[in-house]
C-alpha cells in the first residue's frame, strides 16, 4: 500500500514539478521579450501618425459592425461614440438581433432611419434579415434588423451588408477611445494589408470613472475581485499576447474590439454560430486558412490600450465567464486538433497549439493537482514535506511573483507612473492570489473542461446563452 502511495506521489510530484518548471521558463522568456518590445517605443509620441492617418486618401476604409440585443438604455450613446471615432472613412452597421425591447424604434426615430433597398453583398448564411435602413442624418449609418440568432449570426449579417474591405467588430458595451480604430488599423495600413486581423489591448474599466463612453479618471477599484482581474489582464498582456503576436502565433484577439480582413473572413465562412467562443474560433480558422492556402498574412495584437470593458463584479458572474471562456477555448482547440504538432501550420501548429493545450487547457488540472499534492503531503507525513515545500515555492514564484512583476513592469514600460498606494495595494493583493483567486479560477476552468466533455453534443443550445459578456455575468 505504502509503495503504491509512494509511487503515485513520486510520479505526480515530478509531473507537476516539470510542468511548473516549463511554464515558468516560458513565461520568463515572454516577459523579457515583451519588455524589450515595449521599452523600444517608450516615450514615443504617437500623435504624428494619428494626425497623418486621418487623411482619407491614405487609409483603408472600415465597416464597423455593432450587434445589439435589448440594449435600449445605451444604444444611442454607443452609436454617437462610434460616430465620433477619429477615422476618415467608415460606415457603421448596427445589427439589431431581434431585440424584444424598444432598441429598434429608438434608433429608427433618433437617427431618422429610412428603409432602403440595399442588396446584400455577402453570401454568409444568417437568420432572415427583415429590413435594412439608412439614416437620413448620417448617410454612413445603417441599421440592419434581423431575427434573433446570436452574436455570431448578427456579425455575419453585418458582414453581408458591409461595403468596405475591412470590418471591425465591437461589443455593444465596450468603451472605445477616439483613436482606437486608428491604432488598431495601424498594423494593417503599414503592412500593405499583410495583417489579416488585429486586436487591441483590452483593459478593465471597473472602478475607473466612466461616463458616456469615455474613461474619465483612472482610479483603482475598491473591490479585490476586480483588482485581481486587472492583474490577470496585465499578466496575459505581458506574458503572452505581445510575444505571441511578434511571431504570428496569437490565437485569441478579443471579440470586444478587433479588425478583420473581410475577404479572408468570408472565405473561412464568417463567424461560427455553434461555438461559444466565436472570436477565438474565427482567429483559429483564419490561421488555418492562411497556412492551408500558403498566404503570408499575419494576425497581430496591438499593445496600446484601445478598448475598455466591464469585468464581472461578483464571484458568480466571474465563474460563469471563466467557465464559458474555458469551454469555448477547448471547443476551438478540439475542433482544430489536427493542427497540433502539424508542421504544415508552422509556428501556430508547432508552438501555439501545444502551448495552449498544455498551459491553457490542461494547466488548470495539473495545477489543481499541485494544490491537492501539497495538502496531501502534509497529511501523509514527513517524507513528502520537502517536495511539498518545493512545489509551494514554485507556486509562489509562478503565481505571486510573476503577478507582481507584471504590475511593476507594465507601469515601467508603458510610462504610466501609478500612485504609490495603488502599487502597494496591487502587490499585497497579488501576494494573496495563491490562496484564493488562483485556486478558484483553476476550479472554474476545470468546470469548463468538464462541461466541454459532458455537453459536447449540445453546442447549439449553449451558443444561445447571453449576448454580451456583461449580460451573462449579471
Amino acid at each position: 500500500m505504502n509503495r503504491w502511495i509512494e509511487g503515485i506521489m513520486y510520479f505526480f510530484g515530478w509531473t507537476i514539478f516539470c510542468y511548473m518548471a516549463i511554464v515558468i521558463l516560458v513565461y520568463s522568456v515572454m516577459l523579457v521579450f515583451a519588455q524589450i518590445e515595449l521599452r523600444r517605443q517608450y516615450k514615443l509620441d504617437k500623435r504624428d501618425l494619428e494626425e497623418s492617418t486621418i487623411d482619407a486618401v491614405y487609409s483603408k476604409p472600415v465597416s464597423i459592425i455593432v450587434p445589439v440585443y435589448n440594449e435600449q438604455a445605451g444604444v444611442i450613446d454607443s452609436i454617437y461614440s462610434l460616430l465620433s471615432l477619429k477615422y476618415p472613412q467608415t460606415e457603421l452597421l448596427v445589427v439589431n438581433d431581434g431585440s424584444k425591447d424598444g432598441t429598434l424604434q429608438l434608433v429608427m426615430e433618433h437617427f431618422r432611419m429610412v428603409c432602403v433597398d440595399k442588396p446584400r453583398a455577402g453570401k454568409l448564411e444568417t437568420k432572415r434579415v427583415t429590413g435594412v435602413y439608412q439614416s437620413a442624418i448620417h448617410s454612413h449609418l445603417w441599421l440592419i434588423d434581423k431575427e434573433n440568432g446570436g452574436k455570431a449570426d448578427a456579425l455575419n449579417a453585418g458582414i453581408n451588408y458591409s461595403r468596405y474591405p475591412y470590418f471591425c467588430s465591437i461589443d455593444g458595451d465596450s468603451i472605445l477611445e477616439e483613436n482606437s480604430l486608428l491604432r488598431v488599423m495601424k498594423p494593417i495600413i503599414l503592412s500593405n494589408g499583410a495583417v489579416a486581423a488585429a486586436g487591441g489591448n483590452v483593459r478593465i474599466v471597473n472602478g475607473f470613472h466612466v461616463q458616456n463612453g469615455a474613461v474619465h479618471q483612472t482610479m483603482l477599484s475598491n473591490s479585490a475581485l476586480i483588482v485581481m482581474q486587472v492583474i490577470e489582464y496585465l499578466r496575459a498582456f505581458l506574458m503572452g499576447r505581445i510575444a505571441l503576436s511578434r511571431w504570428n502565433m496569437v490565437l485569441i484577439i478579443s471579440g470586444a474590439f478587433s479588425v478583420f480582413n473581410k475577404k479572408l473572413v468570408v472565405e473561412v465562412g464568417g463567424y461560427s454560430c455553434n461555438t461559444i467562443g466565436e472570436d477565438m474560433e474565427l482567429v483559429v480558422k483564419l490561421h488555418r486558412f492562411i497556412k492551408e492556402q500558403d498566404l503570408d498574412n499575419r494576425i497581430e495584437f496591438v499593445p496600446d490600450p484601445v478598448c475598455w470593458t466591464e469585468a464581472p463584479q461578483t464571484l458568480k458572474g466571474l465563474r460563469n465567464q471563466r467557465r464559458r471562456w474555458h469551454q469555448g477555448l477547448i471547443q476551438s482547440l478540439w475542433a482544430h486538433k489536427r493542427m497540433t504538432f502539424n508542421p504544415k501550420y508552422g509556428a501556430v501548429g508547432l508552438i501555439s497549439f501545444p502551448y495552449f493545450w498544455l498551459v491553457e487547457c490542461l494547466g488548470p488540472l495539473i495545477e489543481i493537482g499541485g494544490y491537492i499534492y501539497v495538502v496531501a503531503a502534509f497529511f501523509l507525513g514527513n517524507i513528502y514535506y520537502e517536495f511539498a515545500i518545493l512545489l509551494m515555492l514554485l507556486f509562489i514564484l509562478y503565481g505571486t511573483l510573476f503577478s507582481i512583476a507584471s504590475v511593476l513592469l507594465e507601469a515601467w514600460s508603458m510610462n504610466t507612473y501609478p500612485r504609490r498606494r495603488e502599487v502597494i495595494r496591487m502587490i499585497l493583493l497579488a501576494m494573496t492570489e495563491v490562496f484564493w483567486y488562483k485556486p478558484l479560477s483553476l476550479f472554474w476552468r476545470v468546470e469548463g473542461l468538464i462541461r466541454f466533455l459532458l455537453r459536447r453534443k449540445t453546442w447549439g443550445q449553449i451558443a444561445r446563452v447571453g449576448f454580451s459578456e456583461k449580460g451573462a455575468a449579471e
Partner: protein
Amino acid sequence: MITVAIEWVALIILLFTLLLIGITLYLFWSRTREKANQHVKKAYIEKHNRHWYEYFRNLAPFSEEMVPVSPYEIEAVEEIFLSYLMNVSDADIRGKIKQFANEHLVGHYKRMLSSRNWGKRMNSLYRIADFQIYALLDVCEQMERAKLSRDEYFQLLKIKLLFREERFIESFLFMPVKMSEFQYKQYMLLLSPSLLEQLKQRYTELVPECRYALIDTIGIRKEMDTLDFLKACLRDEDSEIRIRSLKAINELNIRIDLTEYDSFIASPVWEERFMMTLLLQRLPDEQSLPYLEKLMNDSSWYVREEAGRAISERRQRAGKRDAEPAY
C-alpha cells in the same frame, strides 16, 4: 536532490524578490520625479501660454522670458506649438513657430537625435518636420548612413522632401528599406509637380507598392496630362497596376474612347470589369447601355450590382427626359 532543488528555487525567489523591490523603489522615485517635472511643464504653460498668444497675434513683442530652459519647459513649448499647428492655419503664426524652433530648439532636438532610445529619436524626427527645423537637415542627412529602422528612414526622407527637394529622388529610389504603400503615398501627395514628373519617368525603377501609390496619387491629384502614362500602365502584366490605372483614369473624370478599353469588359479579373462599369458611365447611353446590360449578368456580385445601379439611374434620367415636354 529535492533539497538542492528547494535551495535553487528559494534562491531564484530571493533574487526575483530583490529585483522586484528594486523596480518598486525605482517606480516610486520616478513617479516623484515625473510629478515634479509635470509641475514644471504645467507652470510654464500657465505662465506663458498668454505670452505666446500675444506674440503670435502681434499684440506683444517676443520676450526672452519665453525661451524654455529645461527639457520639461521645452516639452511645454512643444505642447503649445502643436496645439497651434493642429488647430490654426495662420501663416504668420506658423512662420513664427518655425523661426523660434530654428533659433532655440536646435540643440535639444540634436541631442535627442543621438539618443539610444528609438522612441526619443522618432519624436525628434517628428518635431523637426512639424516645426520645420531646417537647421538640423545636415544632421539628419548624416543619420541616413547609420543602420535605421523603417520608421526612422521614412521620417528622414520626409524631412529631406520638405527642406531639400532636389536630393529627394535619388534617396527615394535607392532607399535601403522597403516602405509600405501607405508610406509611399504620403510622399507622393507631398511631391511638387516637377518631382512627380521625374518619378513618372523613372517608373520602371520603382518597386510594385510604390508604383501602386504613384498611380493612385495621380488619380487623387487629378493630373490631366497623365492620361497617356496611365494608358501605358494598362498594358502591364500586374493586374493590380491595371486595376489602379483604370481607377485613376476614372477619377480624371473624362470621357474615354471605348475601343481602347473593350478588352477589359471581358477581363478574367472581376475588379477590372468593375472599374469598366464605372468608366462606362462616363459615356452616352447608346454607347454604354449594351455593355452595361451585358455586365448585369456578370459572375461577380459587385459588377452586377454596379451595372444594375447604373442602368436604373439611366432609365430614371431617360424617363424624366421623356416626361419633360408635358410641362
